[in-house]
């Protein structure tokens, strides 16, 4: 009896045999846009991680004589109003922005997948409660929630803490994936190997772990990637409003915030951090699209 159960589970995990996996890898590698995005994103991550070694200056070293210098040989991206090197701060800003982006993406995906799987698999009142909760959360305008929330947690943010931001952005980011996952689980629940596992009396936890989750890997990966882009946008927005990461810790958003006072005289201060955001978000989205094309044929673009 136990042998046949694990057979069923093995059959479920083997729904994606090796050759198929390799085919997907090939599809991903063949996607030019996705590969360019992936290379750039990896480069961004590398420069964020190795910022202390790559950066030519100390991110917080003030050098008042060269303040607002504009791009020069010494300061590739110019200096800000306190003479700090912009390029260095962009590199260090990437640490914060990408760090928050990845943390939020993982946390919100974790919450979303948990809610989606539980709702889809258990059904009944669990599903009703969880999905109503999701609907209500979707109705809250994210920006207003973030502004009010960040204002309420201002003391902690002023102390240099980052986790309140991760918490707040996660709160407004998990709903979409929860809905998508629930839909997928509802469809999977009717598939033969899940039915068979249930008929053989497999425990619910085992069915979820061995039969359902492996089939959601593709869609989870895609949403995880896209969530990084969304979180970076929200973080930079909050920081731009002065409600996110507080100075002197540099992020692309708060660099833009302090740059906007100099917009008339020093436009380069506005261009570079903005471009950093746009290029990163664009590349992450390209990777996400590439992954979707490779892993999730149902949502493939034509």
């Amino acid at each position, binding site marked *: 009896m136990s042998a046949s159960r694990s057979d069923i589970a093995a059959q479920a995990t083997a729904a994606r045999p090796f050759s198929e996996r390799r085919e997907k890898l090939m599809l991903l590698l063949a996607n030019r846009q996705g590969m360019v995005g992936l290379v750039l994103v990896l480069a961004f991550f590398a420069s964020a991680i190795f910022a202390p070694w790559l950066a030519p200056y100390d991110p917080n070293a003030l050098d008042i004589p060269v303040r607002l210098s504009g791009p020069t040989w010494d300061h590739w991206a110019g200096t800000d109003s306190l003479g700090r090197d912009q390029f260095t701060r962009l590199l260090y800003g990437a640490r914060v922005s990408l760090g928050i982006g990845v943390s939020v993406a993982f946390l919100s995906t974790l919450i979303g997948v948990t809610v989606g799987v539980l709702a889809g698999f258990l059904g009944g009142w669990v599903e009703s409660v969880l999905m109503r909760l999701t609907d209500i959360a979707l109705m809250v305008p994210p920006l207003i929630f973030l502004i*009010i929330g960040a*204002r309420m947690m201002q003391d902690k943010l002023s102390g240099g803490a980052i986790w309140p931001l991760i918490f707040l952005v996660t709160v407004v980011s998990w709903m979409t994936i929860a809905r998508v996952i629930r839909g997928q689980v509802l469809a999977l629940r009717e598939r033969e190997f899940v039915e068979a596992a249930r008929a053989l009396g497999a425990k619910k936890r085992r069915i979820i772990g061995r039969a359902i989750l492996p089939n959601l890997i593709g869609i989870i990966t895609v949403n995880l990637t896209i969530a990084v882009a969304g979180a970076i946008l929200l973080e930079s927005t909050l920081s731009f409003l002065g409600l996110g990461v507080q100075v002197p810790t540099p992020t692309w958003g708060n660099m*833009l915030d302090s740059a906007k006072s100099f917009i008339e005289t020093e436009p380069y201060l506005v261009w570079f951090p903005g471009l950093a955001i746009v290029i990163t978000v664009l590349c992450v989205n390209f990777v996400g699209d590439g992954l979707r094309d490779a892993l999730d044929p149902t949502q493939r673009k034509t």
Partner: protein
Amino acid sequence: MWIYALKRCGLAVVIVFCALAALFALLHMIPGDPVSIALGPRATPEVQARYAEKMHLDEPLVVQFGIFVGNAITGDLGMDVFSERSVTLIVLDQLPFTIVLALAGLGWAVILGIPLGCLSAVRPNSWLDRVTGLVSVGTIAVPSFLVSIWSLLVFSVMLGWLPVLGAGDPGDLGDQIYHLILPAFAVGLGWVGYLARLVRASMLEVMGENYIRAAWAFGLPRRTVVYRYALKVAILPTITLIGIGFGNLLSGTVFAEIIFSRPGLGKLIFDMVMNRNFPVVQGAVLVTAALYVVVALVADLVVAWTDPRVRESL
């Protein structure tokens, strides 16, 4: 049609009520003394006392909510304890600016985005289609505050074509319109690409439908087939999405208002949050939620008015 409209309005009222309850809960969920939380350390004891009285803080939470709802229905959103002005009046002062900005932004996005999407769908893979596709992908990655900053930088600072700040001279309509151009551009830009993509996708789908082939077969002129037959159906999902996406559009107006120093609901909410003046925030958010629901309602009614099949489904 009328029954549908009535049902849909009832649903709208329920949604506003839920939003109200959520907001109320959010603002009262913060632990600690509600008076100092709500007003912050800046408030004098007199202000605090007045606030406690105005907000019926001695009553249980449910009663407070009831009183707030009761007052809100009669149009009384409470009193700003700092300026002693009616919140309703404060909000109503700002509301027209936001509505005009949102409509102007949406307006030019619709006027440009829908024909673009339509033309791309009629001639797939033409240069127009490629450019439209590129622009729509590009604008998604640019957050709306960046659009505002960059357009300010390019059109006001670098080119000097348009004014930088403010909403223009209150008495001078021309000046007001002149000041509206840039913020409206910033608010609408992301929507041009978005709408173009939506319309293109649904047009391509509809153009493949049987009744379009039949319309050609009956010798209807191209204009009639493309614009009266195909677009009328293809536009429906777009209208619904505009209704739902109006919340996003309002977020865009927040940045445009902050960056261009324009009065408006978004700037009001932001300023009042920063000042911890939560009674005003409460009122302003409620009006925003109502605005959002009304727009979604109008969008649904337009769809129902256009598509007889929807009318019967609800």
